[in-house]
């Protein structure tokens, strides 16, 4: 035995409510973030991620309140991301009870943010979210909810983030996201070769086999799941039981 592979439900939060939708359109309210987080904890989720997709000043303020309420009853790690720009944003969310904060666009725009945040708050709470788009045999970093190319090479970028003190990489394939046709395994493998910090695979899971491939062939430490869980196709426990039968070390 040793370290278990992690299953991490991701909840999209819009103005304090968990929503689901396809690529930010047709949003449908599905519940209260604090309640859903606890429900997933009880299903043996290993961590919870909240992503503030309102990404407005008002949304960010609401998120701090949501985190406060959630942290009172959530006894597994909570990561919060979406619209985080500054050290002050980090501090607010961590004081509210988040254990980790994920940054995406801000890490690219402000190249000293990862280093400063990890020095002040510790590497363990700095998660860099990277949206990767396949360009030929390479991947390019996109920001602004995956709409804006940066010219940065994903593999070089995550190496830089690790050197600057990032604690984990949340790696999303823009091409696979929402397709439910499987993770970009080559992307995960290339990232695995490049850095030693944990990689959380995101984007493309449509079946249990996909999750299994990300955690084994892809070498990811954790899988971030959204639609596979929110549509009640599977519970976290069912996913873990299936993975355990295939020989993946998971926590029960």
């Amino acid at each position, binding site marked *: *035995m*040793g370290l*278990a592979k*992690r299953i991490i439900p991701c909840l999209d939060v819009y103005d304090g409510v968990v929503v689901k939708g396809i690529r930010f359109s047709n949003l449908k309210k599905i519940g209260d973030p604090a309640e859903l987080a606890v429900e997933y904890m009880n299903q043996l989720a290993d961590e919870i991620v909240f992503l503030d997709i309102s990404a407005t000043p008002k949304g960010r303020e609401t998120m701090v309140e949501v985190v406060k309420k959630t942290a009172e009853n959530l*006894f597994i790690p909570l990561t919060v991301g979406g619209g985080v720009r500054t050290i002050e944003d980090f501090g607010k969310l961590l004081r509210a*009870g988040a*254990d980790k904060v994920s940054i995406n666009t801000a890490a690219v725009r402000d190249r000293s943010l990862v280093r400063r945040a990890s020095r002040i708050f510790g*590497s*363990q709470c700095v998660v860099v979210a990277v949206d990767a788009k396949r360009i030929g045999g390479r991947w390019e970093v996109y920001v602004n909810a995956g709409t804006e190319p940066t010219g940065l090479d994903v593999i070089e970028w995550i190496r830089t983030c690790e050197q600057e003190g990032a604690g984990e990489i949340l790696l999303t394939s823009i091409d696979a996201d929402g397709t439910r046709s499987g993770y970009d395994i080559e992307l995960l493998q290339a990232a695995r070769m490049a850095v*030693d910090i944990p990689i959380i695979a995101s984007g493309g899971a449509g079946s249990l086999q996909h999750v299994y491939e990300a955690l084994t062939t892809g070498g990811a430490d954790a899988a971030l799941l959204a639609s596979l869980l929110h549509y009640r196709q599977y519970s976290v426990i069912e996913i873990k039981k299936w993975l355990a039968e295939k020989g993946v070390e998971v926590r029960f």
Partner: protein
Amino acid sequence: MGNLASISASLRKVGASPRIVSSIPDGDFDGLILPGVGSYSGAFRKMDEERGSIEKLVGEGYPILGVCLGLQLMFNWSEEGNPGEEGLGLFKGVVRKLPAKRLPHIGWNNIEIVDGSVILDGLENNCRMYFVHSYAPTDYDPSEAFALANYCNYRFPVVFEKKNVFGTQFHPEKSWRQGLIILENFVKYCRR
């Protein structure tokens, strides 16, 4: 140091009334928790200001629990710190970087429990706890260690106890039911 909101919430969950203090008050409490995530030197400076008070409390038999970095401060020294930044020396040992290729050690690791622990009472052997760290005690006294973890084929101690002093390398406040059992045991010990 550390995520005080999480540890306070989990203590409330097990029926305690935690207070967050920046220096150790006089009396009127049953136990003390030294939480801690972040860098050793930052936490060391804070601890060093309170060294006298902590030593006094330990001597008087107050229950003290160190969590993660809070535990690491209880040893003789850590190589994460600067020379001369001596730990509390409540447990024997020196804290060193884990000899693993992939660090930090993040996630849910099983723990091999040694019989006779107060704070691990009621837990099943090999239950999983949430870890986030790159350093761990070495040259420790096995009679003070009550659980071990194995990561990248390296076994290291993760729970320490000596009379009224306790410590966990993992985060009980983030380890769901298993972690809450540990905090409940500590609170019970505080009220004994």
